[in-house]
């Protein structure tokens, strides 16, 4: 919810200065950048220079040399090797002999991609609906608002699981467009859709207050059409709140992806994501806790840093605003 007008479009330099003075923001940005760097350029670099196996390479019968002894990657009783200071299997292996550290790096790519892309899709759709609804008013506003109410009325995870399960059977077909059930687009669309009302509502509220302001009336007086007013006058004035929401919704979406994948309806099973890795390691939580703890820590660090960064961004852009997702 927003209870004060945002900063003007030209205030971003001031905001950036405020942000640089916030130590929590600096730390969280460094953590986030480290994770992004480790997952994107870092993952293939690690695979090509430190160990020669990819995230899906199964090495159940393999051995590694440790302290001069050959150690099986997976013991005869099925117990995988645990964490250790070594290039290969730094965090140990799973029961299929896959390198956990490599899987976390590659899994991070998927989780971050799903989180960021679904957040961008979600915020874009929410912007269009929020601005259109508030500016047009009347029937358009009623129709869009009821649609958002409808989505909002479902518990988020229940709706996400229902949509994901349905789409996991036959994929998504809209006219000539067909998305395979094993495509990453499915969790991206599902996660984006369920969070649209949580972003569109505050934007609509913001635009409702903005549309009565003098600069909008001035634009109308100069003969500007609705499209121009929405794009040139209203959009820049909701940019700051949108940016803040984007960071918060990315964190939310990463968590949602992990939850859906844990429940088996998110990212396809063979594609490593942080949620999938936790799900696949959960059965061994007693004997091989690293399989669930390590990806859990990766999720926690990412989400905390995104949330702290989002809060700092909010404070920097609009010190009086109180914006929260959910």
């Amino acid at each position, binding site marked *: 919810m927003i209870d004060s007008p945002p900063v003007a479009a030209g205030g971003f330099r001031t905001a950036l200065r405020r942000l640089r003075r916030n130590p929590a923001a600096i730390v969280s940005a460094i953590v986030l950048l480290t994770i992004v760097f480790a997952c994107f350029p870092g993952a293939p670099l690690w695979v090509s220079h430190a160990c020669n196996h990819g995230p899906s390479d199964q090495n*159940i019968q393999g051995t590694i040399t440790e302290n001069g002894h050959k150690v099986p990657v*997976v013991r005869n009783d099925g117990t995988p090797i645990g964490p250790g200071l070594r290039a290969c299997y730094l965090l140990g292996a799973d029961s299929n002999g896959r390198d956990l550290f490599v899987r976390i790096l590659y899994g991070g790519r998927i989780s971050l991609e799903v989180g960021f892309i679904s957040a961008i899709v979600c915020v874009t759709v929410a912007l269009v609906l929020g601005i259109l609804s508030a500016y047009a008013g009347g029937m358009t506003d009623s129709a869009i608002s009821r649609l958002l109410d409808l989505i909002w009325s479902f518990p988020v995870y229940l709706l996400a699981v229902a949509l994901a399960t349905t789409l996991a059977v036959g994929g998504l077909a809209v006219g000539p467009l067909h998305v395979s059930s094993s495509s990453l687009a499915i969790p991206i669309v599902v996660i984006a859709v369920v969070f649209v009302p949580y972003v569109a509502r505050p934007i609509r509220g913001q635009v409702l207050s903005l549309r009565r302001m003098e600069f909008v009336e001035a634009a109308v007086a100069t003969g500007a059409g609705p499209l121009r007013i929405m794009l040139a006058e209203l959009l820049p004035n909701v940019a700051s709140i949108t940016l803040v929401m984007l960071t918060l919704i990315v964190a939310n979406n990463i968590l949602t992806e992990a939850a859906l994948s844990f429940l088996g309806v998110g990212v396809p099973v063979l594609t490593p994501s942080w949620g999938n890795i936790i799900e696949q390691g959960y059965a061994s939580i007693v*004997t091989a806790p690293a399989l669930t703890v390590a990806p859990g820590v990766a999720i926690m660090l990412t989400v905390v840093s995104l949330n702290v960064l989002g809060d700092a961004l909010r404070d920097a852009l609009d010190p009086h605003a109180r914006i929260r997702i959910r």
Partner: protein
Amino acid sequence: MRRVTGFLALATATALLAAGCGSGTSASGSGDTGAPVNGGILRAGIPGNPDHLDPALSYTNEGWEILEATNNGLLTFKKASGGAGATVVPDIASAMPTVTDGGKTYTFHVRPGVMFSAPVSREVKPSDFKFSIERLFRVDSGGVGFYTGIVGADSYAKTRKGGISGIVANDEAMTITFHLTQPDGTFNDYIATPFAFALPKGTPDKDISTIPQWRVATGPYRITSYVPHQSITIRRNPTFKSWTPDTPNGHLDGIDVQIGVTPEQSVNEIADGQLDWYFESVPPDRLTQLKAQYPKQVYPFVRNNITYFFMNERKYPFNKLDVRKAVNYAIDRNALVKIYGGQGTPTENIIPPGLGTAYKKHNLYPYNLAKAKQLIQQAGVAGAAVTVWGHNTDPTPSAVQYLAGVLNQIGLKATVKTFDESVYWDTIATQKGDPQIGFTDWNQDYPEGQDFIDVALNGEHIVNVGNNDLTNTNIPAYNKMIDQAKRMPLGDARNAIWAKLDYLYMKNDAAWAPFMNRQWPKYVSPRLHGLVFNGNYFELFPSMYLTQ
């Protein structure tokens, strides 16, 4: 029959069981020292719903374990562990059948005074058995293949009208006679399976699992409540009076089955004293620790089991022999055994080693990834999309992912489709489900090679629903060999044909990729005793008792 998750004792595992469990033939429980104690409620756990609680439809170990305690047939497998448990003995029949007409006619005398529980509350009649077997055909039971050798059964399967002419029931004389089209050495075994258990005439032609008024018992226990995804409540059947030592009264007052307990959770709950017994085996990764920590509560349980990947010969690319052979070359069976915590023996045979001379080890497909890749190229199917089916009970997901990874390695494009185990077995057994390739396993219905070759590979038994021939294998020449073997008396000559067919199917058809004879270690509470691991009905509830 059943695919996975329950248990089977191996005929040849008597010694192993005796070492682990005490007596090899009867009650052999955890720290079992004194006389059995009556009373108490067993707290049991199961990961998902049993497939069915209808004797005509259940074809899983979980279902049979429960139905063994609640229902009865004309004959039964002796309620014992090990080799003794493979013997067929009279149950509701007063004696073993009289076999005449060169082995083609079986006449049973039905014991008077055996009662159906309320609300039916009447004596079991021969016509109830005729009704129950005919009902199998009307409800698309997975067990119909056992009874198609009865005169008139084939035409009844098509018309479902007029009854099966080869079953003659006389309620006055209390006799029932089965006329077979040809001699069948294992007909008594078929009659001892739960498919032939007595249900009262009038039982509807639909799944009675959740229809309490038709869930009628004849045995020592009855199912008083079944709430899918929540619980099954089993209590003593007040109308039951034991008529032979093979239909004992049972020691427990009842069994409370909690549905939705994961294997990992079961270990924790048994250790915490919240659970006594679990339908599944110990999670592979916990076994070593449990054996060390609770040696008297962990039991080995070896079954006549074959765990394998099936390839549907009707589906591209597995309609090509080279592709099926490639899969057999590509899987490392020792690696798969590791996924199961080492609780099994690698194999590429269809028939398990516990079936005597029916098992003859072959080595047609040594692990050879390069050869597998070459066969895929040769078949011209590189890049073909393949979906691997599996269920969600550990460690099956890991095995399925292993296979998918291997298929990707050899040049196919694999994805995974995971089902809840409670619906998985029914889904893969329907032609409509139409899987390409998937995980399954098979445990004996009765201790004979026929149960593996005839039931699971004879193309004459392919049906649309309840299909056990998951690969849709249908090779007329081999079907004839199977029919020939079925006419032979039990023994080495007959076994030799099963062993030969095992070899021929794997060499020339390769629609199965067998990888392991699985073992099923069990972990139970310290107060639970009297465990009997029966080869056909698995763990027997009526033998169990509690000491605290």
